[in-house]
């Protein structure tokens, strides 16, 4: 397998992270917000894997496993919240759901 230079992998991770962040900031729909979060988490996971490959250590992949698990948990909670929000407000607009402000 041809080795990929580390900076290319990190660049990809960075671009993905930025895309996710932009998506999080501009999309109003809660489902899209969740998807953007997933992209950002995967970007972080990619950065770990790249770093692990660079130093020849398994740590990066182990951390990715953690991120995967956490993402699954987050999505299950997030989707449950989305359902509740839709049930209550009949909309998925995140800005409309600002009731919990202090």
């Amino acid at each position, binding site marked *: 397998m041809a080795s990929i230079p580390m900076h290319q992998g990190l660049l990809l991770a960075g671009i993905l992270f930025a895309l996710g*962040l932009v998506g999080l*900031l*501009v999309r109003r729909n809660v489902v899209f*917000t969740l998807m953007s979060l997933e992209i950002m988490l995967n970007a972080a996971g990619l950065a770990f894997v790249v770093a692990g490959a660079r130093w020849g250590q398994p740590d990066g992949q182990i951390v990715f496993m953690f991120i995967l698990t956490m993402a699954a948990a987050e999505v299950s909670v997030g989707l449950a919240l989305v359902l509740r929000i839709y049930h209550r407000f009949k909309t998925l607009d*995140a*800005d409309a*759901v*600002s009731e919990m*402000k202090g």
Partner: protein
Amino acid sequence: MLHLLWLVPALPLASFAVLATLGKRMPRRMVPVLGAGSVGLSAVVAIIITINFLSSPPPGNHFTQVLWTWIDVGGFRPEIAFYLDSLSLLMTLVVTFVSFLIHFYSAEFMEEDEGYSRFFAYMNLFVASMCILLLGSNLLLLFLGWEGVGLCSYLLIGFWYKDPVNGLAARKAFIVTRVGDTAMTLGLFLLFTNLGTLDIQELMHRALAQWPMGSTLPVAAGLLLLGGAVGKSAQLPLQTWLPDAMAGPTPTSALIHAATMVTAGVYLIARTHVLYSLAPAAQLAVAVVGAATLILAGFSAITQSDIKRVLAYSTVSQIGYMFLALGVGAWSAAIFHFMTHAFFKALLFLGAGVIIESLHHEHSIFKMGGLRKEMPVAFWTFLVAGCSLAGLPLITAGFYSKGLIIWDTWSSTRGSAALWVAAVFGVLLTSLYTFRLIFLVFFGEMKTQIHKRPGFRMLMPCVVLAVLSVVGGFVDTPGFLGNVHSFTDFMRRALPPVTEGPLRGMSELGSESLVTLAFLIGLSVAYLFFIRKREYAEAITTPVLAKSLHRFWYADWGMDWLYERVFVRPILWFARVDKGDFVDYIYSGIALFTELLYHGVRKTENGRMRWYAAGIAAGSIIFLAIVLFL
């Protein structure tokens, strides 16, 4: 069995903790079981210890139980340790037993109150603090209990906190006693810096070894401790808090007056008696304070119309007797009077509670009357206690304890004829105001209808205390009357006996006869004015001079008026003037700035998720930039 000693304060303290945390959720019937039961158990432990102490006295007639070291810093090493000798043993026994009866009574008295568990929690803490005060082997632990009873009296006097008047009375009691406590704290500092310990027994040894008789230091220490005692025991000039303390529930008054807080000062002086025997000037001050208080409070008691205030002034006056006894070196006589006073004064308050409760919370004795036939148990027990207070000869406990004090005032080296005259005059006043109270409340025609009758739980403690108010005196009788000295002998294990002075040409029989004469004069004057010829009583108070004198005594010799002008108003004025000074501006500035900041920051919290995310992202970028480029 003496090692059970720690249980005496621990039981009410534990009950306080449970009642304070779980009291509201607890079934209502459990509250008095726990509240009164813990004090009852404590009394049982005290009785077991007493039996043990009498049957097999510990070496040196004292016993110390060290639980743990409280603080250990730079040579200052007070311990949590309890010291038991015949003085603290007797006082603990009386305090726990009388407190138990009062708790038992409260179970019915406070039944319909909403703060039922709160009341018992405070009362338990009160008893626990008092036991710590009595048993503490060093002055610091004693001071802990001392402040504990101060706190509890504040909480209990202001128990019905919804009425601002009660809160005011509670604050007054707290602040006035704090004045005395300041003096006491200074006394403790003085003792520690000069003698290097606060352990009472060690302190007394070192004082004897290091301080010459009559030098300045013991006098100063004695006077400072006297300051604390005067505050707690409501003696001149700090007695003004006690009559106002009547705002609290009646069982509280009984507890504060009879057995606990107000006698703390007597105990403190008896406990440090070595110090006072080294300082005749300070001891004379104790005697003078006592004698002056017993006369002044007696006059005030004659003029009061609220039944509980009469009793409050009576307490002030009787504690005056105890101070007088301490002042002439009659240590055990003071403790004897403490014991009999605990019995009859507790009974008088409990009786007053029964009357007030049955007459729909009527406090004025001029609106009572004729209760003799209607409430026989209350009448007879109240009569017994009243006779004991006034000192009805031969059969009542008060006669023996007061007679002993008065005789010692005459015969002791530190006594004097002037003090004796004051004490005998005090008997006349006591007899006058006591029988005025009894005649007005129980004789004549009825003025207020009886609203409800107290049950067994309120009358039982009254009967027990009535028996004690009679037989409590037979443990120590004068030389011409059986010559029993078991009380004095018991006290001699801890307190030195009276040093008999030159016979001033009167025998003990003569002194007691004159006391009896004073008692009879007071009784007959009360009979004349309040039963036979009520119009005389009105005629004597009509002239302008008599009226203003009456008002003067009624208002506690203008003491409150004086304090209001000398202390309260100048301080309030100064506080008002001082309010807008430079330092205040700094703090108001800080407050203003914080408030502005709040209004700014508040805007950022708008519930918009994307706004928050943007904030987090921007913050991370700024933070990273700082880390990378700076």
